[in-house]
């Protein structure tokens, strides 16, 4: 027998997750040590089977604790190329099992090391299915986890304000404008929490100037854009009223394309309303029907709020519909060069089925008066653009200390 020692055992730090309703889940702590032994936020779930790093770094999760329903997370490690923003903005991560050892040629660091590098705490060993079933029935709920006692965690969970009425966009938007790519036309992209995959796609259409959420319409128009893009982002659209005003001034003056929060903001700008879904859409497998062709797109989704198409009446044409719950997934503003979708055609993570929408935006910018929603040609996933703000802290592959929970 060889005398080589087996991998050193990591000390297991037990912890618990407590929800605002008093539900307790036992687990083991992973990632960064939470200040005061408490990490709190709105607990949501995501059902993707791959793409955990893209989800963790999606600014739309600001203020939230992400539960992954797939039990093994971290299997293929982490890489700089898979960051969707300059850092994760989520409040924590809940998994059944964090892979002790990753394996993939793209991996540059262990996921646990990445979480700690960016100060994200997590908890493993959780019965995530029980948690998901609970959240499915009650809707997103505040929760807290950590090494603090159950009473302290419950207090923290109940003190957590949730995401309604909170301006999370202000926390995640870029402090200053920046430009990526090149081309003979300029696209101004509002950063409400923009994902890098979107910028990559937009950059295939021209030079992209990413601007802070508070940029006014005049400032945007001063850049003489061929089109304006409204990005995804976290939280309640009603709170981002400053952007709604700007969008109102832009529609009709320049082609507009919105995704996710951008879709909601566009609908508010033209007089519509939004409402909070009972438990949101968080996954990479939602069927959406493109109403004009009847074709189905499997889409990546992440939103709690939803546009109420009835509030807009004839002002819009509903272009896309979610087949699971028949909620609105996309619209064209009648008579205007403006359209938006609730889901994520840029994928990252998720299927590429709806990438044709960037082609539609291309058509619209080419001729704002006579564009059509065709051809539905899938666009190859673009490469990560140079010039995007690099992940703030890079990646350091530290030796994991707490991974291996089962």
């Amino acid at each position, binding site marked *: 027998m060889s005398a080589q020692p087996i991998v050193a055992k990591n000390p297991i730090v037990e912890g618990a997750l407590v929800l605002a309703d008093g539900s307790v889940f036992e687990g083991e702590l992973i990632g960064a040590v939470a200040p005061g032994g408490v990490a709190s936020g709105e607990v949501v*779930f995501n059902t993707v089977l791959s793409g955990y790093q893209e989800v963790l770094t999606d600014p739309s999760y600001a203020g939230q604790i992400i539960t992954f*329903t797939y039990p093994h997370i971290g299997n293929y490690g982490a890489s700089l190329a898979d960051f969707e923003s300059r850092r994760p903005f989520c409040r924590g991560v809940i998994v059944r099992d964090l892979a002790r050892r990753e394996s993939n*040629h793209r991996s540059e660091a262990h996921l646990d090391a990445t979480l700690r590098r960016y100060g994200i705490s997590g908890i493993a060993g959780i019965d995530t299915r029980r948690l998901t079933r609970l959240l499915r029935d009650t809707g997103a709920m505040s929760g807290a986890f950590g090494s603090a006692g159950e009473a302290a965690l419950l207090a923290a969970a109940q003190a957590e304000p949730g995401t309604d009425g909170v301006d999370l966009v202000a926390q995640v938007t870029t402090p200053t404008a920046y430009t990526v790519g090149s081309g003979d036309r300029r696209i101004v992209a509002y950063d409400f929490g923009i994902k890098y995959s979107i910028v990559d796609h937009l950059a295939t259409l021209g030079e992209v100037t990413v601007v802070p959420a508070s940029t006014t319409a005049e400032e945007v128009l001063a850049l003489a854009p061929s089109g304006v893009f409204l990005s995804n982002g976290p939280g309640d659209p009603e709170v981002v009223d400053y952007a709604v005003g700007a969008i109102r001034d832009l529609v009709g003056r320049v082609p507009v394309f919105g995704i996710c929060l951008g879709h909601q903001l566009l609908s508010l700008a033209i007089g519509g309303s939004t409402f909070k879904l009972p438990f949101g859409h968080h996954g990479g497998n939602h069927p959406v029907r493109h109403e004009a062709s009847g074709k189905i797109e499997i889409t990546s989704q992440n939103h709690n709020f939803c546009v109420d198409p009835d509030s807009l009446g004839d002002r819009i044409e509903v272009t896309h519909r979610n087949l699971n719950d028949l909620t609105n997934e996309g619209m064209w503003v009648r008579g205007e060069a403006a359209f938006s979708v609730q889901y994520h055609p840029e994928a990252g993570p998720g299927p590429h089925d709806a990438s044709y929408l960037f082609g539609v935006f291309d058509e619209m910018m080419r001729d704002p008066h006579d564009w059509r929603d065709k051809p539905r040609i899938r666009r190859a996933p673009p490469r990560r653009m140079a010039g995007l703000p690099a992940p703030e802290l890079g990646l350091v592959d530290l030796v994991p200390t707490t991974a291996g929970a089962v």
Partner: protein
Amino acid sequence: MPKRTDIHSILIIGSGPIVIGQACEFDYSGTQACRVLREEGYRVILANSNPATIMTDPDFADATYIEPLTPEVVASIIEREKPDAVLPTMGGQTALNIAMTLFERGIVGVPGTPELIGANAEAIATAEDREKFKVAMIEIGLAVPKSGVAHDMAEALEVIQTIGLPCIIRPAYILGGRGTGIASTQAQFETLASNGIAASPIGEILIETSIAGWKEYELEVMRDRNDNCVIICSIENFDPMGVHTGDSITVAPAQTLSDVEYQQMRDSAFACIRRVGVETGGSNVQFAVNPLTGEQVVIEMNPRVSRSSALASKATGFPIAKIAAKLAVGYTLDEIPNDITKMTPASFEPSIDYVVTKIPRWAFEKLPGTSGVLGTQMQSVGEAMSIGRTFPESLQKGLRSLEQGRLGLNCDPAEAQYASITDDDLLAATGIPTPERIFQIGELLRRHVSIERIHEANRVDPWFLDQMSIIIEEREELAGHPDPLSLTRSQWRRAKRLGFGDGQLAYLWGATESEVRAAREALGVIPTYKTVDTCAAEFAAKTPYHYSTYEDENEVQPSDRKKVIILGSGPNRIGQGIEFDYCCVHASFSLRAAGYETVMVNCNPETVSTDYDTSDRLYFEPLTQEDVLNVIAAETLSSGGVAPKVIVSLGGQTPLKLAGLIPVELVAGTSPRSIDLAEDREKWAALCQSLHIPQPPGGTAIDLEQALGIVDTVGFPVLVRPSYVLGGRGMQIVHDSNHLARAMAELTGFGSLGKEGGLSAERPVLVDRFLEDATEVDVDAVRDHTGEVLIGGVMEHVEEAGVHSGDSACAIPPQTLPGWVVEVIESYTASIAAALDVRGLINVQFAVLGTTVYVIEANPRASRTVPFVAKATGVPLAKVATRVMLGATLAELRDEGLLVPPVAGGHVSVKEAVLPFSRFPEVDTALGPEMRSTGEVMGIATTFGQAFFKAELAAGTLLPTSGTVFLSLADGDKPAGIVVAKRLRELGLGIAATVGTAAYLERFGLPVDQVVGKVSEHAEVTAVYLIADGKVSFVINTPQGRGGRTDGERIRKAANVNQVSSVTTVEAGLAAVQGLAEQGGRPIEVRSLQEYHSRP
């Protein structure tokens, strides 16, 4: 787009007998397709030769043709039924090939003929023709392994410039892959290339980049006629490229692909299905990924539902075959509701929140001479699937599901077998894929050999190795505890969450399994059952499809209906296959119809029984004591404390072995005591004696000395067999004491049986006088609690006693037995059933020698022949028996209309076994007492000869209508040979024979056309030579009773390798000539089962 109204009738082609590579999964898909299309109002016509399938039940189609699956026969069915469409994508390769031949002959798929739905001829050709497929993939920009063709060394050297090393060299037109090799160096390349060019009859070699060691993936794709595409499941193989995916341990979903890579693969799969042109339905696309660079290449695609589709369906809860059938008739994915959620459409991609592991089961122990090395040709006969929340849990559950004596990855007696092997040897061994590899890797991890070194040796992904290492480390941790009482609750939970079974822990602590269970339960550590719901809990699931794990929340819903648990038969193996699944499924159908709530427990992903809508509840669980007791406990809890009845006698040996471990009052039907009585040699002998039913003399032995003692009184030859096995495992006919010593050593030693527990006073060897030349008879009967006995069928075997009943052809009704003998057999059966107090099915085997009827054995359980009997007689035997087990009487069932009288007269049904020899050229094809067939077919016709001819044709044995038949007969078979030769002459066939056989025949005025010498004597013209030269169209070769087998063995192997049909018993030879006389040369008449079963 709603369903098509321009077609009204659809012919579904099944896959025929169970063979390696084509098993129950096509019964599952075909059954789903039949059900769905009938529900949609189409007239369904089914063609399948396999009587053991559920799909061939007359209830599942409007017209069921149990006929040979040849293009000619299917053409006759089309001629007769005139279907509007043919669905060829549900019956595996068999159905696709037939469809293609019919298309080429202008019988389907061209204007004026039935339309091919699901996949058209062009799509099938593109996917199936390797070269065409490659070209098509390159055309759409997908990478394929680089390759080139060379005819001389100059060309070869040119090709290797572009392809690079390592590469695979394959000579063209060489059977069985001879001359194929992998070259890693230039020198190796040059040697292999020049040898390959020389070996190929056309002097051509194919040189292909070697991607052995790359990671292998599969995606299950569905497409509808609106061009909507979805991926149902991704699968990652534990075994890297080089092992057939059917022989690989596979895991769903993919574990080590980043989303970027996965989406690239998804895009490629869609591009592939679109380019190949599969318009609707399911396909499977295989990829290889270079672990160092992520480079992806397409390996192949199946334009039809496949083994992997069945696995993907069970792994996700998405019923691929059912949906594929709906898509084939015009629905689009968004028009079909998801059965599981009821709320959402089928146009989505399932998300799962657990890990599924599939592990194949092989039968090398039954095929002496095989190397046991896995490669690009599939060799496994079955598989188990397991579900756990994590890979370690799933893997350990899967390993114990195999029922091969392993309790998990380790912690069982079999782990000792590697003790004497050095690290280096063990590492090297893992580089050669075999069924043992997973355990060898476990042992290396236990020895603390690094993951890097292990990966270096066998290319298994480090993620899998690390997950396995977590199991090993836990074992070390657990071994540090003195006994089951020293664990805390969280330690228990941790161990159970890693999939450790109570049996493993019992081994580790030297405790009993029940002690371990008691200690665990005392701390409240019991399994929770989660639900397979296609959506990772995002939506509420309506379908109670469960698996166990150790978590917080149990999802089993309460119910106050009367419940019955049906224990299934686990992974398919030789001796225990689809027939038992048929019985379990029928039990569920019949009990549901009678108002019971049925609960199925099984771990075989290929089967109909593990379809979520076969039973009211499905537990996808291993069939072990621990797992079954857990299900009983969970179901008792969900019924408010009322324990359900458990059916143990329909799933073969697997559930029967558990009968004694289940509370006796819960066992439905025949009491476990009776089961034991029939198995216990001494008690059984006493019982037969008291009933005055003769038995071959014999006894039981646990060692050679005792065995010799028995032989002293009964004399040679003797039949030696272990108890408590199915399919004649280890059974031998022994002619002398040397052979007896060998046989006993094999049974007691570290052979495969040793692994299953070896011999003991509880599991002795049975030694019986072997009755030479006796006729074997099988009876299936049902007895109810009033004592009424229903004789289901009396089957006369074609082959003499000594050939395992599972490998023997048989006929209903008996063909040569006098009527009074059949009556004696029926009376004996009834009195044995009464003596055993049977409540349900019993199978009794008899041997008739002269005027004496001997009873060989009785088994108070479902037998392999139950479905055949049902199809031959029109009596739903399994359904009737199940009701009887739950207390109904035959009289009541008659009143109810379930039990109908058999359809008598008018037709003869013949069952023939299908053997796996074409996959194993190194194996002797002679039949013996150890069962080796993988499946069966049925022939029905108005005469025995015609039915036998059909059965042979269905089994792939081509009876010759011209050419020369080669005869070589054992001395005892020579008189019958006269008749065979005479008939052959009358039919105008030529005869070649060995010297001895020829001389004998000539003595009776039957000159042979060619006399050949013995291979062993180096004669110039031998049978082997004639066969290889294509001069023989049929071989009748019967082995000598003892020794001297070498010549015959060579002849049989030659016939096997050269694909010349052969029979190895003179009885089969006689039946063959009778078949030829009655059928040869004439077109086959087809008739549906419904017509045969129709009662005036």
